[in-house]
């Protein structure tokens, strides 16, 4: 049985304009010790998925339908006291802004101790300090810096401390929401390696959310590409990046600047992604799609299988199966 299985999940936000769907019929599975990346642009619903998995959706959000099964338990129906047993202990999150995730008035080791004591009130002092040392070792913070306050840490060290905190209770699943977006490239490189090695060492399931496809590519084994609340393509890292099939994935890859693809850059003609009302079933991407000439406007896309692990969500099976060249 998989560690996490999400079926048909839809989440909406109650706004002045009515119910807006942020996440639309999402399904995915995550095996134990596996890593799954969500990539998409701002507003595509990737953070909403992370928040739903942590039970931290804001008040105006509502899970409209679907199930989130985690270790055989349905998370959607949990009450807040039940969530507190799960959150931090079994599912932990690495937030984007490490500077804001730490409390400035307590030393860092105290904050990590707090996370452990909350879930294991009976732990002995020796076990606790042993565990803290292990955690600092794991994320490569020198033990001498353990009792420092957050402001004495650099940005990268704070992010490591937040990773240590997420790992404190040996969770089965870690959700990392844009963990390196606030860091510059050199520190980002270190933190990504850190997350990857720690994840492999501890065999924790990892959901990694980012807008940066190259960052996702460097961490995750499997990728889901999201557009306007829907997963439009899913596959292994190799499948998605080597032979992207969905026009949106191709657009995204074609406009990503890296040092070795300057001649292949295609400037897309992207419209803003549409706001979705609850009853929308047609293709969300048809307005910006470079392949369909708007023929698909109003049509309902379906899942098309390219291989057992690689699928795309499109109205045009022929197009997807042909692959029509690499980006």
């Amino acid at each position, binding site marked *: 049985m998989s560690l996490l299985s999400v079926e048909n999940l839809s989440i909406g936000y109650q706004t002045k304009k009515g119910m807006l769907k942020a996440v639309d019929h999402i399904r995915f599975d995550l095996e134990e010790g596996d890593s799954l990346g969500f990539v998409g642009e701002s507003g595509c619903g990737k953070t909403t998925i992370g928040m739903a998995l942590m039970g931290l959706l804001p008040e105006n959000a509502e899970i409209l339908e679907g199930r989130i099964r985690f270790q055989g338990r349905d998370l959607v129906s949990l009450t807040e006291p039940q969530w507190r047993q799960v959150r931090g202990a079994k599912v932990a999150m690495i937030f984007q802004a490490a500077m804001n995730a730490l409390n400035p008035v307590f030393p860092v080791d105290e904050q990590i101790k707090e996370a452990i004591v909350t879930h294991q009130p009976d732990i002995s002092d020796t076990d606790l300090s042993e565990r803290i040392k292990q955690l600092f070792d794991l994320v490569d913070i020198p033990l001498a810096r353990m009792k420092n306050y957050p402001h004495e840490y650099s940005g990268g060290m704070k992010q490591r401390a937040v990773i240590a905190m997420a790992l404190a209770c040996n969770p089965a699943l870690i959700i990392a929401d844009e963990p390196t977006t606030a860091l510059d490239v*050199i520190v*980002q490189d270190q933190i990504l390696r850190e997350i990857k090695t720690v994840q492999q060492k501890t065999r924790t399931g990892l959901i990694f959310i980012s807008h940066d496809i190259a960052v996702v590519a460097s961490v995750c084994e499997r990728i889901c590409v999201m557009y306007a609340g829907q997963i439009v393509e899913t596959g292994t890292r190799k499948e998605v*990046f*080597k032979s992207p099939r969905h026009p949106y994935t191709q657009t*995204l890859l074609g406009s990503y600047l890296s040092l070795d*693809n300057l001649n292949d850059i295609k400037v897309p003609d992207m419209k803003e992604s549409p706001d979705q009302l609850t009853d929308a079933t047609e293709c969300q991407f048809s307005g910006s799609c470079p392949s369909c000439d708007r023929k698909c406007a109003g049509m309902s896309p379906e899942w098309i299988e390219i291989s057992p692990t690689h699928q795309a969500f499109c109205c045009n099976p022929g197009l997807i199966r042909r692959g029509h060249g690499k980006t």
Partner: protein
Amino acid sequence: MEKPDTKNRLLVELKQVTKAYAPQKRWFARSSQPVLALNSIDLGIEHGEIFGLVGQSGSGKTTTGRLLAKLESPTAGEIYFDKTPISQLKGLHLKAYRSRVQMIFQDPYQSLNPHLSIAETVLEPLMVQQIGTADTRMEKVVHTLDLVGLSPGEAFCHRYPHQLSGGQRQRVAIARAIVLEPQFIVADEPTSMLDATIAIQLFKLLQEIKQTFGMTFLFITHNLAAARYMCDRIAVIHEGHIVEVNTADNIIRHPEHPYTKKLIKVQPGFKYGR
């Protein structure tokens, strides 16, 4: 820079420029050393080029941009614009300088005044510089909005920043910067807040603007790939020192300074790439 003919072509020149920020005075703290944001840097930007300044956070790249836009003054050294030293500019001369040098800021959510409509935002530089009549100004605004891809311009005039997306706001900021047709534009991380598909469209727009008006750009970024895509020459800045200047291609293919090599090594790319 020894040859006089290349020197003539320089639009902007920084000579031994140092910028130090004095630490805040606190009652009980011991006085600490000033922070050196720029340490005696020399830099020359030629007419009509896009010059890239690449570095990590805290390296001094934004400070350089702010000095050039004369939002701040150097602690030591001198900046020459078209062979004129800019540190002594005051009054009308400074106002004239502002019409020739414009800046595009990083965060389009903060750099636009939420109380001003798009037309008012783009109109303001023209009013301040007293260019044209009311009618010709408005024409110019609409034309500029069309030019930056907010077309039809009339449709955007009466909207406010909160009604626009991040990419559209940055286009407004670009319109505001180019409406005076300045000679030199400082673009400080203009796309770091935007998605990749939007960023690449803005890069294309900036290149078109450069072609149309023949402007010179200082393009400040932390993204080496973006700098290579956009720029003719690139300078790498590290802890207030310029460590390497070269053409964009050379700096990527034949980096000399260890810091540049490190930057290239950590650029994200695709392990299973094309």
